[in-house]
């Protein structure tokens, strides 16, 4: 077989097929996605997203691009902290965006705040170069078929001086804690997915894709290779997740 392959959880699939498979996962879980995140992480994903905003320190007048922004969780946080600012949410999966747009109707967006939604591919961003002040991706980068392409695209659409930040599951450095975490994620999460979202396979994919994702140092090196400077990271909850930051210089 000559076609290029990539990973879909622990399975090896053709590169051309991955985006459709990822879209399948998120189309299936869209209506229950936020509830499942709360259940799976025991609500901790909210603290991680708040920690991301603390480090990012949104300011008035900034324009954020949130890649794989799904139902708008980060965009809402960004706007409520920045005040008069602009957020654009991009996601591969239309039903996730539609769900977010519904939530926007009831969310409290500050006066003068602007929010828009775009279906698009992280590896071919439909935006001009130098368009955004901030580019974020939370729990999305590991679902991208070619991660270096997505990082290069993020760098392209940021204006010089712009900030990139990624929140993603990472590697727990402590061996014992990692074993406990593995038992929880492989033993408990797919079952939760079956009960709450009626879909254990999609949640099995989520758990497997987390294990496949590069560790903190490896991912930091990938961000540097994409052209970012001053790259650093912070572990969250003992490394269950990590925040990576870089600047377009």
């Amino acid at each position, binding site marked *: 077989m000559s076609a290029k392959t990539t990973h879909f959880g622990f399975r090896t699939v053709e590169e051309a097929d991955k985006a459709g498979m990822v879209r399948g996962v998120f189309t299936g879980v869209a209506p229950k996605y936020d509830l499942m995140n709360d259940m799976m992480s025991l609500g901790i994903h909210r603290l991680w997203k708040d920690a991301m905003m603390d480090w990012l320190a949104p300011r008035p007048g900034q324009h954020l691009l949130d890649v794989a922004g799904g139902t708008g969780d980060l965009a809402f946080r960004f706007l409520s902290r920045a005040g008069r600012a602009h957020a654009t949410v991009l996601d591969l999966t*239309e039903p996730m965006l539609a769900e977010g747009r519904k939530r*926007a109707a009831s969310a409290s967006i500050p*006066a003068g705040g602007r929010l828009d*939604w*775009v279906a*698009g591919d992280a590896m071919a961003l439909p935006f*001009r170069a130098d368009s955004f002040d901030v580019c974020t991706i939370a729990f999305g980068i590991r679902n991208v078929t070619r991660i270096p392409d997505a990082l290069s695209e993020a760098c392209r659409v940021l204006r010089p001086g712009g900030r990139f930040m990624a929140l993603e599951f990472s590697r727990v450095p402590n061996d014992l804690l990692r074993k406990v975490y593995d038992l929880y994620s492989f033993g408990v999460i797919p079952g939760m997915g079956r009960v709450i979202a009626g879909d254990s396979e999609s949640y099995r994919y989520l758990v497997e894709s987390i294990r496949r994702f590069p560790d903190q140092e490896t991912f930091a090196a990938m961000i540097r290779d994409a052209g970012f400077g001053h790259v650093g990271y912070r572990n969250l909850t003992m490394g269950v997740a990590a925040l990576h930051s870089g600047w377009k210089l």
Partner: protein
Amino acid sequence: MTDAGNDDRTDDRGEARTGFDPRMLEALVCPRTGGTLRYDAAAGELISDAARLAFPIRGGIPVMLVDEARALDD
């Protein structure tokens, strides 16, 4: 448009039928060519003349995926 509450908080120059905000064209480009897009309000599409592709707008959301786009004939 009952599902577009956030639009009420912006100065609403959006086209009523598609719910699309034309100000988005400041940043949006064709994902294939990187070129400028043209808004066809009647058809509810964003046209990339260079790529000969029409990207649909569904529920006010531009769908900038090449495999969702309609090929222009001539």
